């Protein structure tokens, strides 16, 4: 099943602060993500979740260690190459959707493809196909301000998926959604993942969201504390995640 390595993180260390007064936020993280994985990273506030995601998505640079994406170390790429990498290989879903309010939902979804120089008709077709999958077919001509939070986030997921990226990074995707909207989004993401169309790395503090993943890693104090893998039903997985959280203590919100 674990066919192809997508991301390989080796001994990732990140320090913040000036020399002599440094805080080590990430203390040597190792993680390998394979094609078609659905990984959730959980951890209490200040555990380093956001830092890890920023480095993975090439927004931030690590102090030590390497991140191999598609066989290339992203910590050593130039800005231009990073731009291309983000455009072609990575899809992003942000907590606050980050749709452009200047354009319609359809234009938002099609944007990465259009920027890649794909023909207009093809962009349209793909955007419509994804919108159908995410239940947004009737909202394509609307502008972000006319959409609910859930619709916006599903739109953002479509935008992240349209280029067929190697991996999707999702930063607290349900953080700003109510439980129904959150469930709709996760169901859709799960569907895409199960159809073999996406590898997903999701950062979340919410055990319910995490229970949609295949593996949950718990990050605490800058280091991976444990990994929980889904065995049976999601309900059972959710209970195990909750138990681990309780046993570890700490504030997970």
């Amino acid at each position, binding site marked *: 099943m674990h066919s192809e390595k997508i991301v390989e993180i080796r001994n990732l260390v990140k320090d913040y602060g000036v020399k002599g007064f440094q805080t080590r936020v990430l203390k040597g993280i190792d993680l390998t993500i394979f094609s078609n994985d659905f990984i959730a990273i959980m951890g209490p506030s200040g555990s380093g979740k956001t830092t890890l995601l920023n480095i993975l*998505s090439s*927004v931030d640079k690590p102090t030590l260690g390497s991140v191999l994406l598609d066989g290339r170390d992203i910590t050593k790429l130039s*800005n*231009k190459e990073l*731009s*291309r*990498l*983000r*455009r*072609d290989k*990575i899809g*992003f879903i*942000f907590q606050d959707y*980050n749709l*452009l*309010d*200047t*354009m*319609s939902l*359809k*234009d938002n979804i*099609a*944007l*990465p*493809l*259009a*920027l890649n*120089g*794909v*023909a*207009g*008709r093809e*962009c*349209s077709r793909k955007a419509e196909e994804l919108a159908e999958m995410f239940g947004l077919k009737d909202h394509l001509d609307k*502008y972000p*301000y006319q959409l609910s939070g859930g619709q916006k986030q599903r739109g953002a997921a479509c*935008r*992240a998926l349209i280029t067929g990226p190697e991996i999707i990074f999702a930063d607290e995707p349900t953080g700003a959604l109510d439980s129904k909207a959150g469930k709709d989004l996760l169901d859709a993401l799960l569907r895409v993942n199960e159809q073999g169309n996406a590898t997903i790395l999701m950062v979340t503090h919410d055990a319910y969201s995490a229970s949609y993943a295949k593996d949950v890693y718990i990050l605490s104090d800058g280091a991976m504390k444990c990994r929980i893998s889904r065995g049976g039903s999601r309900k059972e997985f959710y209970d195990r995640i909750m138990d681990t959280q309780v046993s570890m203590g700490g504030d997970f919100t």
Partner: protein
Amino acid sequence: MSITRLALQNFRKSVSTYLSLILSLAFTIMIIYNFQCIVFSDLFDTLEEPNKGYINVIIEVITVVLVFFLLFFIWYSTNVFLTRRKREIGIYVFMGLSNQRIGKLYAVETLFIGAAALVLGLGVGALLTQLFQMILLALSDISVDLHFQIALEPVLITTGIYVAVYTLFIIKGYVNIVRSSVLNMISASRRNEYVRENRLLLVGKAVLGVAILSTGFYLAVRAGGVEVIESLLAAVVLVIMGVYLLFGGFLPLLFQGFVKNKAVLYRGERTLWINNVVYRMRKNYRTYAMTCVLMLCSVTALATSFAMRNRYDNIVRFRRTYTFQILSDVPGSQEQLAGLIGRDNNILYESCVELLSLDASLVDTQFNYGNYMIVPYSQVASLAEDAGLEPLFREPAEDEVIGLSHVVLLSFITDRSDITYTINGRVLREIHDTDEPYLGYLQEIGNYLVVNDRFYDELKPLGWSVMYVYSFGIEDPENFAASKDELDAFVSAERAQGHYTGCVTIDPHDKTADWIKVLYSLCIFVFMVFVLASGSILFMKLYNDAFEERGRYKVLQKIGCSERRLRRAVSRELGCTYALPFAVMAGSAFFSVHALERLMSENLMTVYGVSVLIVLAFFLVFYRASVRLYYKNAGI
């Protein structure tokens, strides 16, 4: 903390944000102040009345235009300011401030901005007055000793106008805040400006805009008699309305069409900037229209200026055709006069022509100018040959007449195709009207009609008197004074014998036409003011927009849009912002310059081309600066 102190604190904190607003207000104040200074200065005293009076009237007219501009400008900028401030001060609602107190806070804060602009505008204005006047005089080619002076009246008048207009809009803002709901206040600047407008409405607006604009153009270039003044005024109003409708209807329609057609839209960064243009269209179309109208004014002003300069040269050349002209009822004095002038000056050419003075009651025509002088064709023809002037159009038949007019500044009668004169019961059709200076300066101060020799002989017994004009052009017009004594003696001698004799001497240093040069340089200033105003309005708008775009560009960068791409999208979008009003202006200016062409009966198409190119050059500079600053402010 009192409202005033809070407002002062807010003002101090945000002074850099509103710097562009303060600077542009100050600029307008400075210009009005400078124009007022001219009215109250002794700058043009050398020009003597009534020329100084003409200039003052023109400056007053320009001031009225500027005040209107100030009005619109303050309206526009306080609106932008109000929307931006509303959300910030809306937060005070949660601290328990009433709408009235928030309104007061806004009013006081705006007052600080206004006061800062006033002080700055007057201060810089006072410092620059001398420079301004120096440039004005240099352009007008007039030499006057300048001395630094600050008169009280211009300061008071400028302050008065500004305070009145500004207060009006502060009150408007205050009322607006007092009446708005909390939600409205907080979401004011977040509210999406873009609402896709009804297609039918847009089509209606576009069609109406094109129709009104075409009517305006038609009225502007239509030839006619005195009604031209009215059609020109109507044309100005119609063109302004048409431009607004065009930007409010046609452009949104066009761009919404682009957005709908995904095959066109999804091509590289096009989706980014076209969507941005559409998104801002509702907010921006008034700005586009306003800058377009301002640019139109500026191009027209520049064209007027060029034409005035040209006209000045022509008027001077016209007047200087002859240095001496002697009008007398004594025939055959040419040789004697040539002898007198020849003593001190070399005569280049000389001529004599016979005139018949007719009483106004004997002549009936559409435009009655008073007494008419009738000249026989053959004499003018030989005069033209003697003085080396263009030959006459052709010999008029017995029912035809040729008008001799002079170079005028403007003529509202643009259609001279149907003019007839009824002289002594006979209807004569004017076949041509010429401003070739056959009779030199005298042609400027009378009405002359060239008729067929036979008809002239018929008329001769009816006239008051027959007069003779002896004209002389000399080699060195500067040396005119040398022959003056002899000529004066000649005139006195003739008069003593009971003859009607007079002498016109043209002084090449004569200043009576100098006010036209001032007009020329004032037009250049008006051009500068308008082109800078339209440029800076767009510049200011883009400067503000860039801050709003920051977040959007951050997102785009995160999803992998390279800096180069973003920059390209920005430069396209900004290019569009400058190009749209410019294109509409270039089209409209063709008609306005054409109208001017008719008023001045001169070919101004080169002037049109040059003026548009000059505006283009200014705009390119503004565009470049905007793009640079936009990158910086939007963080890309």
